[in-house]
């Protein structure tokens, strides 16, 4: 690729990415109220999508060999447990990350 082609590629990726982020707003704008199903779906999606994102983050786990998947699964459980116990977002996230980093070094 020439420098111009590389630049165009980056701009193209940016444009398509923006398209995926903007399309719902473009379709349901100008004072048009979205249909009842879309409004309902929009309220339901956060809880479905967050579950999707946790699994998305864990997609590279290799469950066929036990030790490699263990740190992430234990750390996810530790993060949730810490959050139910203390209800402190920052503490849960950094505590869970510390558990993961420690397990990675102990088991890896």
């Amino acid at each position: 690729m020439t420098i111009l082609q590389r630049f165009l590629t980056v701009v193209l990726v940016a444009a398509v990415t923006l398209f995926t982020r903007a399309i719902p707003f473009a379709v349901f704008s100008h004072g048009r109220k979205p249909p009842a199903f879309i409004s309902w779906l929009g309220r339901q999606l956060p809880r479905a999508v967050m579950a999707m994102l946790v699994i998305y983050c864990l997609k590279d786990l290799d469950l066929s060999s036990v030790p490699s998947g263990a740190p992430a699964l234990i750390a996810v459980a530790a993060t949730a447990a810490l959050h139910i116990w203390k209800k402190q977002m920052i503490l849960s996230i950094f505590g869970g990350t510390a558990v993961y980093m420690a397990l990675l070094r102990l088991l890896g």
Partner: protein
Amino acid sequence: MQKALREAFPRTLPVLAGYLFLGTAYGIAMRARGFGALWSGLSSLVIFGGSMQFALIEPLTQAFAPLTIALLTLLIQARHIFYGLSMLDKYSPLSRCRKPYLIFSLTDETYSLVCEGAPADADPGRWYTAVSALDHSYWFTGSILGALLGSLIPTEALTGIDFSMTALFTVIVTEQSMDSFRRVRAGEIGLGEALFAPLLGGCATLLSLLTVGKSSFLLLAMGLMLIGFGGRWTLSERRRGA
């Protein structure tokens, strides 16, 4: 705006840790392929999408293939459509000067921070803008750092810090579940209503990952979720009509 930044900053700390680390890793990976700070910085500024930027490193060294790249981007980024759908009621009423930037910067992580709405005591428009701009600046700074400093950064010692993203999403799922169960106990919603969305999201994603593999499972997962939600909506509409 300064007040909004101060208020939003603590909420963005997990993203600060994750984006600085992943952004640095991105800058280093780009540099290893011969792309300096200018390219990493430009990509992080205008694309602002981690997984896509990593996926683009290899194609950038190959022949110019705009159609393939556009399709690849659509495949990886399609999940953002869901984020827009669930931010419609929160972002649509905002002023015309804020909305375009908020929509542009709706990444996975920013979405996870804004999807439950702004704190009750904050100006929503300013708070959303502060969260989005802070996240954007962390990602940009990380990728520049990685490209400039590269080998000087002890990434070995920091291996695993990117788990803060997984932990962020885990905490939000936990918070949503605790909230749902509180509402079930208070009699506001039924158990089915509380469990349906997270179970559908989890099962659809897991099933897709196990059947089509990790390169394109998100698209199938989104399709399954739409079918699931559509089915539930139709059933409840029919019950209401009867």
